[in-house]
């Protein structure tokens, strides 16, 4: 069990002042933002809002100053993230770049790409998407078929990516692809990541509409796309290791349990305090929120200490998705058949009920996460 012991981590008083600043900013910035907008949580994108965060120094908070960062602590960053998410701020535009692409470039291209691109990420101006999944490659990422051939001064890329969130508005895509031959002895060899400028000739983005009829993710076609040598992230063959590190960051944040917060808040306002069923059910959720927050903070603490949180992050994401996905069902249980049509509860529930199936798919399916946890438990 030692592997899955998530030690709590206490925020110190320094973060209280920061939390107050963020709350004051959000109270003003979101004062006209209705519940059904807040329900989008980190799926909502607003570049102007991202820039405002950049102006306040709340993007790239932990990065060194030479990359446009602010050299704050990982836990200060955590406080800003959880406040943004709990308020339902539209953070999606910068989210991927700030969460994982920036740290990736800082680690694997510290002298070339990081100094060039990170300052703009920290200003909220540069948007990234992640090209991992492919039409025939979902959970089994090591089987990607997109290829890069070495050519004079760079690489020539052919293939396609799918479920690429935000590709239609992004400047760059971090792209997992094959640069070396398949090695039957090591499935993870020969994979690399290239940074692709989405405005390059040969890049085509086609929208995929989700079941709500909304456009978040895309197909991306790469047809003889030229990528200069500088845009190789790290060394050829580093791809698998990089993806593992990125996914740990992708899974570790508070966005993995807060996605349905607006629905919980609407339920609290609609609840009958004299109904014991309401009290017990909503109280169980309150306890889960409190526990998940401590676990999520614990993972942030591990990141702050430079530890690898891959297994605990998988566990927290799995538990977080269970919480998130239980909320539309609970709303149905408590308020089904007697909601006021068009009420905030009704609108928020309509959106989140139809979005919730994706919560245990994105960033690693429940089955993949539980396989990672099982390995951590010593099962093979």
């Amino acid at each position, binding site marked *: *069990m030692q592997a*899955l*012991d*998530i*030690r*709590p*981590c*206490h*925020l*110190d008083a320094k973060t209280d002042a920061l939390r107050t600043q963020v*709350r004051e900013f959000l109270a003003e910035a979101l004062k006209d933002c209705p519940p059904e907008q807040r329900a989008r949580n980190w799926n909502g994108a607003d570049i102007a809002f991202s820039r405002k965060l950049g102006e306040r120094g709340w993007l790239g908070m*932990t*990065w*060194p100053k030479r990359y446009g960062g*602010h*050299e*704050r*602590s990982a*836990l200060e960053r955590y406080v800003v993230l959880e406040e943004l998410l709990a308020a339902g701020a539209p953070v999606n535009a910068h989210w991927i770049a700030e969460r994982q692409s920036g740290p990736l470039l800082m680690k694997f291209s510290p002298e070339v790409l990081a100094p060039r691109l990170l300052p703009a990420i920290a200003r909220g101006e540069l948007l990234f998407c992640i090209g991992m999944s492919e039409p025939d490659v979902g959970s089994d990422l090591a089987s990607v078929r997109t290829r890069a051939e070495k050519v004079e001064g760079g690489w020539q890329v052919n293939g396609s990516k799918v479920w690429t969130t935000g590709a239609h508005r992004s400047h760059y895509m971090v792209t997992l692809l094959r640069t070396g031959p398949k090695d039957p002895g090591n499935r993870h060899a020969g994979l690399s990541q290239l940074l692709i400028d989405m405005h390059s000739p040969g890049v085509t983005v086609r929208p995929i509409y989700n079941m709500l009829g909304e456009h978040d993710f895309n197909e991306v076609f790469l047809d003889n796309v030229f990528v200069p040598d500088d845009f190789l992230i790290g060394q050829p063959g580093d791809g698998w290791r990089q993806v593992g590190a990125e996914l740990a960051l992708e899974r570790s944040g508070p966005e993995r349990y807060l996605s349905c*917060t607006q629905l919980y*808040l*609407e339920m*609290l*306002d609609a609840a009958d*305090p004299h109904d*014991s069923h*309401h*009290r*017990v*059910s*909503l*109280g*169980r959720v*309150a*306890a*889960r*929120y*409190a*526990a*998940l927050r*401590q*676990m999520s903070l614990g993972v942030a*603490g591990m990141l*702050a*200490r*430079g530890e690898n949180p891959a297994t*605990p992050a998988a*566990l927290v994401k*799995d*538990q977080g998705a*269970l919480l998130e996905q239980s909320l539309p069902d609970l709303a149905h249980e408590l308020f089904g058949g007697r909601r006021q049509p068009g009420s905030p509860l009704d609108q928020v529930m309509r959106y989140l009920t139809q979005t919730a199936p994706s919560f245990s798919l994105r960033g690693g399916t429940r*089955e993949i*996460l*539980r*396989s990672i*946890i*099982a390995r951590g*438990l010593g*099962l*093979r």
Partner: protein
Amino acid sequence: MNQAPNTYNNDAQAPSELQQMITHSVQGLFAELVSPEVMARFDTGQPPSELWQPLVDHGLTAALMTEAAGGSAASWLEASPILHALGYWNLPLPLSETMLAGLLLSRAGLQVPEGPISLIQTGRLGDLQLSADGQLDGRCLNVPWARSCQWAAMADCGGRIALVDLRQIGVKLTAGTNFAGEERDSLEFTNVPVQAIAPLQVADVCEPVWLFGALARACMLVGALESSLDQALAYANQRVQFGKPIGTFQALQQQLAHAAGSIAAASASTQIALHSAGLALSSEAGQPTSLTFDVAVAKVCAGEAATLVTSIVHQVHGAIGFTHEHSLHYSTRRLWSWRDEFGSDAQWAEVLGQSAISAGSQGFWAALTARDLPLQTPLTRSASHAAA
């Protein structure tokens, strides 16, 4: 990756020297004391009273007592390995009760008697009343280990701690047990005097026996949960079907990973509550703390984990886990019992829910980050009436 200075506080991260010492001493001790024979004998109705003295000799019963009373004055976090081990090894003796009784009696300046001590919270599970002049009247249900204890530490809701002799005239005991066969007796008091009484106000805690009792049960639940999971993992790696260990099958891996997730939630929330208990005990009387909220969260999470994990570990073990011969039931029967005691997960959830509903959409998040959802204690009247 992160090159900036880190801002976090180490106090709940690295175990203190005393906690390491306690951890080290209990690990070997419990493994040695709680033999399969002890458990088998206990299930035929014979508590292993011979194990009490070694617990006393190792200072475990007095771990939470003040130094003035001869205890170690350990914090809850430091003493928690004892409660965890008690759960992990299923030790069938009133150790957690005696530890908590020692804490409350010694802090109230009362003498702590020798031997195991039971616990009573007035206003819970019965209609027992402690009058202004220290007379007891009424019934109290599910009193832990009353048959094995001459003494009980009793708290009322008015900030008083009393020491009660359970063997005196006017105390009628009706024997009972929880699902694990641990003594949970009913007591009826008729005009019975307490032997000593003193005021004790711990921060904003209104029912110290109930609250700290719930915290102790949460710790024990986490220990028993980890014991169940360890047994299931060992079994899954060793049991071969269809030519390979059943732990290699994804169906089992998925379930065991799910179980581990809920145990991690129980464990993390219990750690936080233990930390808060330390802060509350060093606070001024009446000072607001997050202890009640944190204990409520811990007891809900530990109780819910007990429900899920018992089901999964039995499924993994198959028929052998359902036999009396196999050791699995020692943990699972305790999980089913302890999730019930000092407030079930549903009862604590109801208190949390009431408070969350009053906080509403505008107040909930701020209250959650401050761990300050003001809880209405004692628990709703209906809860204690239903039990009585």
